[in-house]
Structure formats: structure tokens, C-alpha cells
């Protein structure tokens, strides 16, 4: 797990708030084992707000049902002045509760019981999004993509990416190693009303392959998953 986390992210300060001290103990253990070095805990809403004001954590994991001041109230208070990433970790799994959480400004919502790995992946994704690396370079089998400059370096030559190609690549990179459906990719570059855009997507994918692959007709980094979508393999993922 730790190798997936850039070192800078592992030094981020994480505040975990839950009224179950046993759970807090377990979560601390999970985060320390994953390589995180700065983990704070709070067992009430008031304590959470106090630590947030004093310690300025980089990410907050917040339970909903805490005595006196509940998680939603704490979140509302935080959101009055701060955009710190907040992940709600709660036993309240109904759709209405999730909607309430997102309406109040939660960045993610995980329902108990959960697998520690899932929590770590979500925290990592939130941190990546909130604190992007200054230099974002993606190494592929035959090329390197500089996301900041929207450039592809292949065989010593530099090619520019169009805005759509960059959006497409970023979406694939966010989910590197995982299948991304045609609809998700279309909506990433066209917005909500993407229907009928599938053929244009194929054209963008073809152009992208011409820029990143050694042999675009036999792709090894940007793979088609028949009927479903596409999958990007970076050098980090391996195969």
C-alpha cells in the first residue's frame, strides 16, 4: 500500500473522529501500517472542532453519530471556512443519509463495515485530488505523459495533447489499472449529455494511441475491453 502513496501524501495530517475508541485504535493502526505518520483522533464533535482549529489537519475522517454534536453539524461548521477534504465514515448507510452528507459538503462517504484497504484507497484518492503533485508525469511502456504541460514524450520527440485528449487521459490515469466504461469517458469529455458520442470517443482514443503507443494498432498501455470500455496501464501498475 505504502508504495502507492507518494511520500508527500504519507506526511499529511489526518484527523479521525469517532466515539468508538476501539475503532479509533484500529484505524490508527491501519494508517500507521500504511505509512502515514501524522494521525490524530477525536472522540466527540467538540473535540473534532477543537483539533481542526488547533492542528489544521489535511484530511478529516468523520463519524456521523457522535454524542452531543453530530458529524453533520461538525461538517457544516468546518465548511463555513474550510475546504479540507472530509470523508464521512458512518454506520448510517441509507441513501438519505448519504445525500445529507454530500449536501453538507462531504467529499466522500464510506459506510461501515468497511475493509481497511478500501478506506486507505479512498483517503489516498482524496489527498491526491486535494493536494496534487507539482510535477505530474505519467510513465507508460513507450512514452511519458506530462499532465501539467499536456505533452507526450516518445522516442525523444514531443507531441502536444489536445484539450479533449488530455481530459480523456486524465480520466484514464485517475483509474489506472481499472476498466473505465465508455460512458464514463464520454461524460468526462462531453458532460452529462454524452449519448451518441461513442464514435467520436473512438477517434480520440485512436489519436491518443498514436501519440502514446509504440505500435498504435497493437496497444500495450491503452487497452480496449470489448463492449465495456478502456483500461490504462502505467509503468507503476505493471501488467
Amino acid at each position, binding site marked *: 500500500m505504502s508504495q502507492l502513496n507518494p511520500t508527500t501524501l504519507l506526511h499529511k495530517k489526518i484527523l479521525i473522529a469517532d466515539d468508538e475508541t476501539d*475503532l479509533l485504535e484500529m484505524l490508527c493502526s491501519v494508517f500507521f501500517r500504511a505509512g502515514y505518520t501524522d494521525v490524530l483522533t477525536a472522540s466527540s464533535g467538540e473535540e473534532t472542532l477543537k483539533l481542526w482549529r488547533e492542528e489544521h489537519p489535511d484530511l478529516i475522517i468523520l463519524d456521523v453519530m457522535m454524542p452531543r454534536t453530530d458529524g453533520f453539524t461538525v461538517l457544516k461548521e468546518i465548511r463555513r471556512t474550510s475546504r479540507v477534504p472530509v470523508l464521512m465514515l458512518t454506520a448510517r*448507510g441509507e441513501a438519505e443519509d448519504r445525500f445529507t452528507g454530500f449536501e453538507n459538503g462531504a467529499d466522500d462517504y464510506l459506510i461501515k463495515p468497511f475493509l*481497511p484497504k478500501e478506506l486507505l484507497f479512498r483517503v489516498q484518492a482524496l489527498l491526491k485530488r486535494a493536494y496534487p503533485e507539482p510535477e505530474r508525469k505519467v510513465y507508460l511502456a513507450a512514452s511519458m505523459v506530462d499532465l501539467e504541460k499536456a505533452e507526450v514524450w516518445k522516442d525523444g520527440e514531443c507531441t502536444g495533447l489536445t484539450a479533449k485528449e488530455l481530459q480523456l487521459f486524465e480520466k484514464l490515469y485517475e483509474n489506472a489499472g481499472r*476498466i473505465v466504461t465508455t*460512458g*464514463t469517458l464520454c461524460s468526462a469529455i462531453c458532460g452529462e449529455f454524452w449519448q451518441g458520442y461513442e464514435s467520436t470517443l473512438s477517434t480520440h482514443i485512436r489519436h491518443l494511441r498514436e501519440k502514446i503507443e509504440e505500435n498504435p494498432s497493437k496497444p500495450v498501455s491503452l487497452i480496449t475491453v*470489448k463492449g465495456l470500455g478502456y483500461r490504462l496501464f502505467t509503468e507503476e501498475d505493471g501488467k
Partner: protein
Amino acid sequence: MNQIERFFRRYILSTAGILILFFFVNVLLLIAFLTMTDLYNNTNSKAFSIEEFAEHLSYENGTWNADAQAMDMLESKNAWAMILDDSGQVIWEECLPEDLPRSYTVSDVAVFSKWYLDDHPVRVWTIDGGLLVTGFPPGTLVKQNFSLDISYVWVLLFSTAAVFFINLFLMLYLFLRNARRVEKAMKPILNGIRDLSAGKPVGLPENGELAEINASLNHAGKYMLEKDNTRAEWIRGISHDIRTPLSMILGYASEIEDTEDLPSQVRHQAGIIRKQSEKLKQMVADLNLTTRLEYSMQPLHPEQIDPVELARQVITDYLNSRQTDGFSFGFSEDNTGDNFFLTGDRTLLVRMLGNLIQNSITHNPEGCHIEISVGVQKERNTKKFDARCVVFTVSDDGKGMDETQMGRLNRPEKSGSIASDTREHGLGLKIVRQITEAHHGSIYYSAADPHGLTVTVTLPCQAK
């Protein structure tokens, strides 16, 4: 027309049939009675006919004579006879009582021919040269004399028919009105009973003659609803309370499983604890969802959904996040280019397809190929000519399902209990059925060719 309406229509029709039957039976009885009376009169030897009697009289040598048969006829009826000439004088008589006059004026003849002669009922018959009169003992015959205007006769006939039919229609009308009133009073009660059996709330007006029954049904409905809510809340509470302890079991088991310094046996055992905890987690979630769907406590959050993309995302989620060793997936779109969308709750529909895929995985531990297809077809059970429905098919080439179980799952009626259709396939397929019904769709299980299971879910959709 529902079952209750059918019952009342049948009741009304059968009663109308009974009335018509009575009418025809009475007409037949009347005809039979008249025929019998006529037959009686014709065959009765004792009947006296003055016309026949006149045939047995003869006029010879200036005098009238009666033969023996005529005498027998008079004797059998204890009757008498006389012949009057044109001046009213008796010119022949037989057995004529002494106290009766032997001469009659025209007015006398006119009176007795219509009524009685000194209380003797008489009959008259015109013969050559006179008037034959036969008389009977007083009180043996009733004589009525009446005359009617022909137009009045028609009115009378018409009125009689009119009275008969007015009575008939009035009777039918009153009967139908009463039947309708009973139906109107009973219909809400019967609907209430039907709602009760379906577990729906009952709210009947507590007034009128049947107010007590309505109140009882309302009370029963409220009681059942409270009971259901209590049960649902209890399950919800339990499933909620179990989440945090289960998180810790899952967390620590995962930690132990991932600690490389520990003996492999301990890590293996921790892995078993983790897997079983995950199963428990799924069961808790399923139990909570099925209870909420069962008692209509799960609000739908409808949105427009691309069915093809929905299926893609479910399969992709499986391929991205789960161990699918031994299983291969195929996806096909039957109507490429047709743009249709579903209106439904995305989370629930994802759950529905996920459960169907999980069902194939769970029941084929040795592995199988799972093929998912999405198509659009014309909706059969609707009058709208352009109504379409989207068809999701999840098919595997595994060991399949026995016919008894398939038949049970294909039964259209609601089981009403969690236990009834979860015996062998857990809550997963029950949830699939509940989600399908919540989206006004249908589900059908069939055997795949050459082996395996095919599940077809049909949901209404609209053109984009």
C-alpha cells in the same frame, strides 16, 4: 373488472335469470291450466249443451216431442225445458216447475235470457217456430252479463300488459339498486381486506351501517402496519448496531492477514475471519434493504439512466474490484444505435444486476462464463403502440437451477415473507425481484442452452 366486481355482476345476472325463469314458468303453468280446463269441459259427460239438447227435439203433427236422450239430459241435471212461441206462450214443457208462469212478455224473456227466471238460471236457444228455454235448479249456475266498448277492451289489454311489465321492471330496478347498494357498501371492505392481505395500509370511512366493520379493518391495518414498522425498525437498528463491531473485526482480521511476520496458519485463519465478516456485512446490508423494500420504506430516487452504460458499469465494477478467477464475462448490446433510457433508482438497479451476477458466481464455485446483454423490445402488456421495454439478460453456462426452484421463483404472486423465496438463493434474488417490482418490471428465470441459468429482467423504458 376485478374479482369483487365480477362477483356482483354474476350475482345480479343470476338473479335476473331467476326472475326470467319465474316469468316463463308462470306463463307455462297458465297455458297448462287453461288447456286442462278446456279438456275437462270437453270430456265431462255431465256438461249440458242446449244446442245438443235442441237436436233431440222434433216437431210432428203440430206438437213438440223430446226423445229419450233429451229426457236423460234433463234428468241428469235435474233441469227443465220449455218452448215459447212468438207471443210468449208456453207451447211445450218438460219438468217445468208448477210455480213458474206459462206465459211471458217480451220484457220477461229479455230479463231471464240475461239473468234468472225466478232464481232459476236458464239458457235459451232459438229453434224453428219458437224459443227453447232450459232451466236449472237455483244456485247451480252463475250467470254474468257484461258488455264493453271495443276501445276500452284495447285499453284494458294494454293496461294489463303495461302493469305487468312495469311491475317486472320495477322489481328488476329495485333489485339492481339494492344489489348496487350492497356492492357499494361491500366494495371498500373487500378492497380493505385485499389491501390487508397485501400488507398495505387500510383507511376506510368509519360511518354508515357498516362503520363497525370498517373501523375493525382500519384497526387491523394500523396494527399490522405498526407491527411491520416495528419489525423493520428492529432489523434496521440491529443492522446499524452491528456495523461498528463488524468494522473492527474486518479491520483487525485484515491487519493480521496482511502482517507478513506472523505464521502463515494464523494469517490464513485471519483471512477466513475476514471473508466470513465480509459475508456477514453483505447479509446485514441485504437484510436491511429487503426489509425496507418489503415494507415500502425504501424511497426511490428516480433519474434517467442509460441501460447499456448501467450494465457496463456493473460488469466493470466486478472486473475492477473483485477476484473473478475462473469466471469470464461477456457483454453485448442487442440494439446498437437505439437510444433509450430507463427512469429508475441507479443504486438499486446497480444492485439488481450485481446480485444476478453474484448469483451466478456463488452457485458455480468451479467457475463459468457469464454473459450479460441489454436489448430493447416492444412492450407486450400495454395498449400503447410505441411502448418499449429494456431487457437485461444475465446468462451463465454453469450448473443451472432445478425446475421446482425455477418455478417457485417465476411465480407471479408476492410471497410476502422473507423466508419463502430465500431458502436456497439467499436474499440476493429476493432483492432482485423487489427492485424489479419497484420499477414496474418483470423477471423470468429459464434454463440456458445447453446448461446454466438465464435470468431475464424486463423494465419499461422511453426513447431518448
